[in-house]
């Protein structure tokens, strides 16, 4: 509940019916094969006089969100913090330059697609081992993928296997398929060759998700589904000290680690104790009382947190907070039945006092949006949206224009949102904003199955939040507003062929600049023509950390680099 604004959905989170057919390769960065050690990376870190120490974390794990740390089962960002500290995958993003992230090989020395991006070949680094000495081999990956993809295992990310040829057959209900020939592991040549269901230039980025990480085959076979409840053996910068329990997860440095894409070869900390919090408020109190070294900032405490403690608030993260208009079963606000209510929607968007919301609910820490896609995504264009700023006069004018053209509201409009997470206050302000231009509204707070209900046609003017799975324009457009995403993350069920076509053209464009422009055109159409979505703000960091802690930062994708965190003595 507390973290419902953070969504860790992996690549192009879609239902089985929505396989993105990205034809040719994406940007050149995804086919980058060099594993450079950037000098810039070294400059960012603080040099510590001594290494080691135990870090007591109170920020990452909130009890209600937690399910399992098993890489095949992780569901939320909370658990991923732990899982990614113990497991390294084929590839990883380098965020040294936050505006220009670069995909690099981690366990994979090289990763190359074939000519039409239907087959990817990963060359695995030699002599990498798990923390118990077992070697990491291409078969470790094949075994892991097939184990995670079984229907009986019911992984929340099981649908990811659909990218692989015939992968969907493993996910079908009561499927007995247990291996995929499309995954060829050659332990002699140390290659992993994957044939895809359809061309996808983003696949190398997608495999950075824990679902596609390696697992020690022999050990896991002894536990299979229960692996996550045991003392898991991994290959990351840290390893588990004991199996996870009700109160905490404890990790210790893994001396057999193979290093990361930034050139680090050894983790700073000796030990990390992730303490499970009941909620952010309690976690913050514990932090202030000196019990922990980090905490999530609860809603309402940002002002005090910034004044009193070290924090990550200035770091922009790849997330956007927005409301979507429902385009299904929503005669008041949608264009169903041949109507055109875009003027009404534009009026509503300009009536929202985003600054007031930012000040009151987020203490001014969020960034006001000029579009949906946040800065840091390749291709980002500033001031893209013409109707996303607060302007009462302009709003009233648009509303009048709409009325003159025959538009009438035959009752209050409904605002849907999920309870918890501070949205109540945002909605209260929105209600007052709408009242100021003469629109009455009622609220529809939903506590269970919110996103599912919205996706199936329950959305009228509904709240949403999106956090990037990986930094591409497509993740914020295709996965949220395309026709293929209807029934998935397209909460408003928005479907427009012109928009889809623009996106398809962009996805097929190999040249970075041209592709960026095409994506811009799509977003402009989405906002300035159809006004299908009202962005409210762009996310920023939300954690505090103790005075003695160094190198603690929330990168744009949210996964903290635990190997770099250190404690001054």
């Amino acid at each position, binding site marked *: *509940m507390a*973290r*419902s604004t*953070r*969504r860790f959905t992996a690549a192009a*989170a*879609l*239902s*089985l019916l929505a396989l993105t057919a990205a034809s040719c390769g994406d940007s050149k960065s995804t086919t980058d094969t060099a594993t450079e050690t950037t000098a810039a990376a070294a400059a960012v870190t603080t040099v510590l006089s001594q290494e080691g120490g135990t870090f007591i974390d109170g920020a990452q794990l909130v*009890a*209600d*969100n*937690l*399910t*399992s740390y098993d890489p095949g089962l992780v*569901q*939320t960002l909370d658990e991923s913090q732990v899982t990614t500290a113990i497991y390294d995958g084929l590839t990883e993003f380098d965020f040294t330059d936050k505006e220009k992230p670069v995909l690099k090989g981690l366990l994979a020395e090289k990763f190359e697609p074939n000519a039409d991006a239907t087959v990817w070949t990963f060359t695995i680094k030699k002599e990498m081992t798990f923390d118990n000495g077992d070697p990491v081999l291409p078969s470790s990956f094949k075994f892991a993928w097939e184990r995670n993809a079984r*229907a*009986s*295992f*019911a*992984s*929340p990310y*099981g*649908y990811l296997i659909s990218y692989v040829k015939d992968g969907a057959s493993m*996910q*079908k*209900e*009561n499927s007995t398929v247990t291996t995929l020939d499309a995954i060829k592991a050659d332990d002699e040549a140390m290659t992993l060759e994957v044939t895809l269901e359809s061309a996808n230039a983003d696949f190398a980025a997608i495999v950075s998700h824990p679902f596609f990480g390696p697992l020690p085959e022999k050990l896991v076979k002894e536990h299979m*589904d*229960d692996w*996550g*409840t045991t003392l898991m053996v991994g290959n990351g910068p840290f390893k588990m000290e004991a199996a*996870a*329990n*009700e*109160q905490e997860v404890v990790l210790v440095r893994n001396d057999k680690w193979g290093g990361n894409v930034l050139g680090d070869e050894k983790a700073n900390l000796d030990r990390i104790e992730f*303490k499970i*919090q*009941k909620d952010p408020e*309690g976690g913050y*109190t*514990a932090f*202030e*009382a*000196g*019990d922990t070294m980090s905490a999530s900032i609860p809603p309402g405490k940002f002002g005090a947190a910034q004044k009193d403690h070290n924090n990550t608030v200035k770091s922009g993260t790849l997330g956007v907070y927005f409301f979507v208009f429902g385009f299904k079963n929503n005669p008041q606000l949608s264009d169903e039945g041949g109507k055109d209510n875009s003027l009404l929607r534009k009026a509503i968007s300009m009536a929202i006092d985003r600054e007031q919301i930012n000040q009151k609910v987020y203490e001014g820490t969020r960034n006001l949006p000029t579009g949906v896609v946040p800065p840091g995504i390749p291709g980002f264009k500033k001031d893209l949206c013409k109707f996303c700023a607060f302007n009462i006069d302009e709003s009233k004018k648009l509303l009048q224009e709409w009325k003159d053209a025959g538009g009438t509201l035959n009752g209050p409009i409904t605002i849907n949102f*999920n309870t918890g997470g501070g949205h109540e206050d945002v909605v209260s302000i929105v209600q007052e904003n709408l009242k100021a231009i003469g629109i009455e509204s009622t609220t529809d707070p939903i*506590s*269970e*199955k*919110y*996103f*599912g209900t*919205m*996706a199936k046609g329950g959305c009228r003017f509904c709240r949403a939040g999106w956090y990037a799975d990986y930094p591409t324009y497509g993740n914020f457009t295709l996965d949220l507003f395309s026709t293929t995403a209807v*029934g*998935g*993350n397209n*909460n408003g069920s928005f479907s427009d062929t012109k928009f889809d076509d623009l996106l398809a053209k962009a996805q097929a464009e190999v040249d970075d600049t041209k592709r960026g422009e095409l994506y811009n055109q799509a977003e402009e159409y989405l906002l300035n023509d159809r006004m299908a979505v009202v962005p409210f703000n762009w996310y920023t960091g939300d954690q505090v950390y103790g005075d003695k802690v160094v190198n603690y930062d929330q990168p744009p994708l949210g996964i903290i680099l635990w190997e770099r965190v250190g404690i001054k003595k």
Partner: protein
Amino acid sequence: MLSFIVRRVFQLLFVVWGAVTLVFFLYFLLPGDAAEILAGGDNRAVSETVVTNTRNKLGLDRPVIVQYGKYLKSIVTFDFGKSFKDGREVSEIIKERAPASLRLAVWAIMLEASVGISLGILSAKRKNSVADTVTTITAAVASAIPVFVLGYAFQQVTGVYANNHDWPQWLRLPVQRIGPDEWYLWIIPSAEQFRYLVQPMIVLASVSTIIVARLTRTTMLEVGKAEYVRTARAKGLKEGVITRRHTLRNAMIPVITFIGIDFGTLITAAILTETVFNWPGLGSKLVASAEGRDLPVLLALTVVVVLVYGIVNLAVDISYAWFDPRVRLAGGER
């Protein structure tokens, strides 16, 4: 006596069955699709395949009656299965959490009993005096403050404020969690452990201390007027002796009864205290398992809670019957 006990044991089993059945059907009454929520539906739209696979994996696709039978069997054999949420053995979870709840409850009861009874005796002795009024008001106010507010206030003072103003270490109390979990003879905390125990203990006890105090006061006064006490006074016995030998013992019966019942209530009513102090007990797990749709854990917790409550009640009743012959002879329901 024996038939009394046997009858009560059967009643307890019936109550356990009833509670489990009620909770089981309440679970399926809860809003939303359990499988979808367990697959992450609270935070994002989940694909149909994943929901279906999750449902099959957890056995939620079988007809409700079949599931009911399966869970009844698991309860009878004490094999509660695995948590829907993280796959851990439910018995492991209970083993981790139950002691925490019990220890907190025992200490809270001890505090509540000692403070409450003392206050009650004091109030009875000096009825309507200033001391009586002051203690009444203090205890009443303490119980009128919502538990989570009291807990929060404690945390702010001994934790945050203390940290910001550099109080001496021994005054600075940790604001949450159970700490080192060090206990001697299972129930006596180490010094460090006590620092974690003291705040939740006080907060939990605050709710019922006033009731114990008022109850003691009332029964003390009442017994004090009884014939045999008047006789004792007439005989010339000193007041202190009268108190100790006659009034106190008899006055304690209803008080002990109440405290015994309160013990059972405390274990579940500690939900709020456990939440505020992040004390890893059964109460907070109950909330989590209801919200998280974790059926095996929910049912197991229900069984544990009902059993404890029932056994404590039974023990109190047996001791009550033991102490007060009138009850024994009267027989039948209490």
